[in-house]
């Protein structure tokens, strides 16, 4: 038997294996880029250099948010030799159990790699890579540990940058940072796990500017994660660029003073420079020291406490709390009445307490005196004239037209909508219109008598303190406002275009003189409700408000601007449950703030002492 033909079987095998392998390699190398990507993942390490964030200055060039160096205690498990857990735990001030648990947490925290092709998973954690064992140690803390690290091979220190707040004020303005979550990493390729992101306030609103540009170095790395050489001689590398500095309109000393005045109170102060719309101070009380929320360690201990505090220090009240404006709202009803021609500056209405309660004062014979006395029956009459102008025979239809007109005026003052201020947490408040009441009472089932509480800023009208301060700014400007904002300039550029635009209210500027005069009388004439805001050399124009509160003591409100001519500051003060009218608590607070800002000193020491000692929280 001849077996020579069998050589063809063998030759076929050899050639087939060669062909199949060549095809397979052609597929792997030329057609499928999965392996190229995997190779990059393995060997071409992108080393990201996160620059320090942009810093924040106040209007006078004081640094209010800066960066400080911190230290991470890094760990490479493969380098750890005969770790004396007891001694190590003692060194860092932990228990042995905590140290052991930390190792487990690090390993599990790294997650797993999933092979697309095989669907198999491998842990990302590698013994030869460096992981932070302790994060964000201060210089003092690392100084105690670092000298002893020689005894613990596998551990070393690493420098990192974090925020610091030299003034401990304005926490609700600047916000805070914390580590990105998984969704944020997915949504924006800028972030890698462990990176920080602005969580609130300006840190969040200006995140894209402040974070700067990451530097990227491509390096060829070994399995030990050591850099071997720059990839492609550094051709694709970029340098890290710190985010630009933000210059704020905030006066940090005024802010600090405001926070001090509101100690032991719940409330807000918002101060605006009327001519520019720059926010000078935005006090939310109670607040917290922003240094409490620096870094993971601080956040994990302090954040839950702040969150559970019944006085809600994390809430930026001036932006997020909606209150009825109380009598301060009478200023706007006066202006609309004048513009609509339903009253004149000389209009007088009797103080008829049978309609609505009022305090004892002579009946107002003109508009300015009505403001000075804050006469409730007067404003019922004024607002009735605005709402019921007699354009329709039916009272209901007439009220519908009138209220919608009124609401349109209110919107032109920036009310009932979110102001486009450069911060997060803003709320719109509410200005009721016909549709609103239709829902409650039915179409054409209501008239002025039903909704009359809007004349004195009660009932369905809701404003944030920022809105209230903006009203003061509009009156100070005699008819317009620039959207209140924090940032004067980003780096070297000037204010953003949206913060240069004047918004005109629907009331012409000629009508403001009477209102301003009324506001002057509130503060500077005997019998005025806001005489506690009086200053010696500065004419303060203001309006008090007392907001009835079904849940407790009345809130105390005051809006004001000063000086009367060429105003430099417009302000709203809102103190919750102050057990007294606007004149008693809010007015003197505003007066002190104005004096502090305009003169840098306080003459009314007695007034200051009373405010500082007042306690409406801890009883």
């Amino acid at each position, binding site marked *: *038997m001849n*077996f*020579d033909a*069998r*050589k063809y*079987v*063998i*030759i*076929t*095998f*050899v*050639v*087939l*294996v*060669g062909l*199949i*392998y*060549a*095809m*397979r*390699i*052609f*597929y*792997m*190398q*030329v*057609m*499928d*880029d*999965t*392996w*190229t990507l*995997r*190779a*990059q993942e*393995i*060997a*071409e390490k992108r080393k990201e250099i996160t620059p320090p964030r942009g810093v924040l200055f106040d209007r006078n060039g004081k640094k209010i948010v800066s960066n400080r160096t911190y230290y991470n205690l890094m760990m490479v498990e493969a380098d750890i030799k005969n770790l004396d857990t007891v001694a190590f735990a003692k060194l860092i001030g932990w228990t042995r159990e905590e140290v052991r648990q930390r190792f487990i947490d690090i390993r599990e925290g790294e997650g797993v790699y999933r*092979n697309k*092709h*095989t*669907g*198999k998973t*491998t842990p990302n954690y590698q013994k030869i890579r460096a992981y932070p064992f302790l994060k964000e140690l201060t210089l003092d803390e690392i100084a105690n540990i670092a000298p002893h690290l020689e005894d613990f091979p596998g551990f070393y220190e690493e420098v990192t940058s974090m925020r610091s707040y030299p003034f401990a004020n304005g926490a609700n303005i600047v916000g805070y940072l914390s580590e990105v979550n998984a969704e944020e990493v997915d949504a924006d390729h800028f972030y890698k796990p462990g990176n920080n992101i602005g969580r609130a306030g300006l840190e969040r609103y200006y995140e894209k500017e402040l974070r700067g540009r990451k530097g990227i170095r491509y390096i*060829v*790395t*070994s*399995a*030990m994660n050591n850099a*071997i050489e720059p*990839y492609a001689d550094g051709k694709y590398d970029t340098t890290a660029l710190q985010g630009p500095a933000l210059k704020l309109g905030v006066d940090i000393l005024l802010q600090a003073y405001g926070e001090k005045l509101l100690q032991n109170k719940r409330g807000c102060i918002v101060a605006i420079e009327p001519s520019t719309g720059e926010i000078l101070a935005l006090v939310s009380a109670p607040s917290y020291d922003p240094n409490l929320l620096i870094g993971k360690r601080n956040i994990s201990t302090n954040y839950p406490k702040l969150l559970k505090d019944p006085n809600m220090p994390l809430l930026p009240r001036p932006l997020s709390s909606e209150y009825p404006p109380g009598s301060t709202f009478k200023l706007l009803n006066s202006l609309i009445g004048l513009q609509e021609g339903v009253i004149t500056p000389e209009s007088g209405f009797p103080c008829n307490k049978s309609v609505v309660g009022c305090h004892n004062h002579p009946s107002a014979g003109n508009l300015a005196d009505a403001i000075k006395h804050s006469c409730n029956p007067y404003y019922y009459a004024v607002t009735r004239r605005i709402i019921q102008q007699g354009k329709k025979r039916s009272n209901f239809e007439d009220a519908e037209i009138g209220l919608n007109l009124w609401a349109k005026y209110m919107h032109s003052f920036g009310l009932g909508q979110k102001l486009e201020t450069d911060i997060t947490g803003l709320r719109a408040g509410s200005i009721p219109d016909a549709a609103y009441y239709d829902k409650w009472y039915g179409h054409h089932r209501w008239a002025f008598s039903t909704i009359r509480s809007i004349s004195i800023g009660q009932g369905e009208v809701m404003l944030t303190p920022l809105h209230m301060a903006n009203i003061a700014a509009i009156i100070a400007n005699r008819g317009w406002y620039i959207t209140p904002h924090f940032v004067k300039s980003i780096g070297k550029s000037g204010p953003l275009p949206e913060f240069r635009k004047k918004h005109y209210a629907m009331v012409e500027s000629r009508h403001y003189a009477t209102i301003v005069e009324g506001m002057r009388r509130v503060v500077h004439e005997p019998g005025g409700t806001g005489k506690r805001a009086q200053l010696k050399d500065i004419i303060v124009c203001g309006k008090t408000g007392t907001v009835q509160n079904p849940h407790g003591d009345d809130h105390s409100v005051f809006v004001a601007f000063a000086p009367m001519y060429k105003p430099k500051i417009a302000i709203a003060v809102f103190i919750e449950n102050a057990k007294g009218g606007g004149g008693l608590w809010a007015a003197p607070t505003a007066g002190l703030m104005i004096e502090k800002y305009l003169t840098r000193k306080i003459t009314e020491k007695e007034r200051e002492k009373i405010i500082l000692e007042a306690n409406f929280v801890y009883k």
Partner: protein
Amino acid sequence: MRKNESLVAHLDWPLFIVYMILLIMGVATVYSTAFNEDHPNIFDFSQKYGKQIMWVGVSLFLGLMVFLIDSDIYRKFCVPIYLFTLVLLVIVLFMPAVNGAHAWLGIGSMGIQPAEFAKIGTGLLLARFISNVNVKQQNIQTVLLANAIILVPMALILLQPDAGTFVVFTSFLFVMYREGITYDPLILKMVNSIPGVKFKQTWVGSHFIPILFVVVFLSVVTLLMSNETLEFSWLGGLEIPGFWSVIIALTIFALIMFLILRFFSSRRDRNRATFVVLFGYILASGLATTVNYGFQGLATHQKDRIELFLGLKEDPDGDDYNRNRAMAAVGSGGFTGKGYNKASVSSVESNHVPESETDFIFCPFAEEWGFLGVFVLFGLYMFMLLRIIMIAERQRSAFNRIYAYTVAMILFYHFAINIGMNIGFAPVIGIPLPFFSYGGSSMMSFSMMMFILLKLDSQRRDVLQ
């Protein structure tokens, strides 16, 4: 003097030149892979490339020795040579284990692996044994004896343990197949023991070895591919599950085989060829389907065991880790490669691919030279294997032919398993790529194997048998 002249004249230069080219390429790849900046000199003997050059020198010297000795000695002394390698295989079992295997004889890096040399001894004895057998009268005794020659060293190697070389020894079965020593007598005995059955020959028994090879190869590839999805971006991102790509490949090969056989076979054989191809195609597809779905139907612990063996599962030794990284290195080479000395995944320094200068040397080569380089390398190996088969077939002496086949089959197995390891087509069992991988024992044993072949071939006319 005359003898040397005749050697030069009768040396098979094409094979010798391809052998030399592979040696040079291998040294160049080891140099690139294991490059150490502090020792840039390629002749620095403290470095792996320096040592590899030294091994090449030793191998060439051994080759010269082989040439100077009369080729008759291999026929005459094949039994002592075989026994000597067996003794070495026994001694090595009492040596201290390196990496968990008793494979090294000698001290440190100067040690040798007797298993590598056992291939030569076994090849020679097998050639001698089969060449003396009258294959027309093959019986159970012949088959068992031939198998025993292979199985004794295999058993000793398994004791080390060295799974890679163990598998390589099955390449001798192909040589037996070529010479007509098959398992047919065994199967006949079993079949004919059934009353009333009287076969002279069974097809399965005669072709048992190639069938086994196809079954194992196809099963392993199907299992490994069943985890993959091939993506064809130039076909609009068409995705083909791994199993179906196996079926498609089988169909294409069946068509090609059909056409080839149709053109080259005689009219008489044509119908039979068509039948064989069709039958083979149906069987192969059936096997792939059975393996694919059968595997999925297995119990988890059985699945785990198979996946562990194939390196599809992460195990304490990290086979999947090696395989995954090796494939990343090969796959990232692209069409033209990253350039010499530019391997980023598989350089020794980066250490992402362990053993990248020995068992995984194909990784840095494929990464640096891309598909073009792979194509050239495959061309060289294919040429070498086919040339050896051609040389085998031109021998007058059966001993020479059989020995030449053992060389061809051993090299083929090393090629198929080693490259397969690098591209995810074979389990990671750790055997070197001939003439390429760093290592003294494999370099010397492959070279001696090659030189004995060249020597036998150069004297083929002197042999009367």
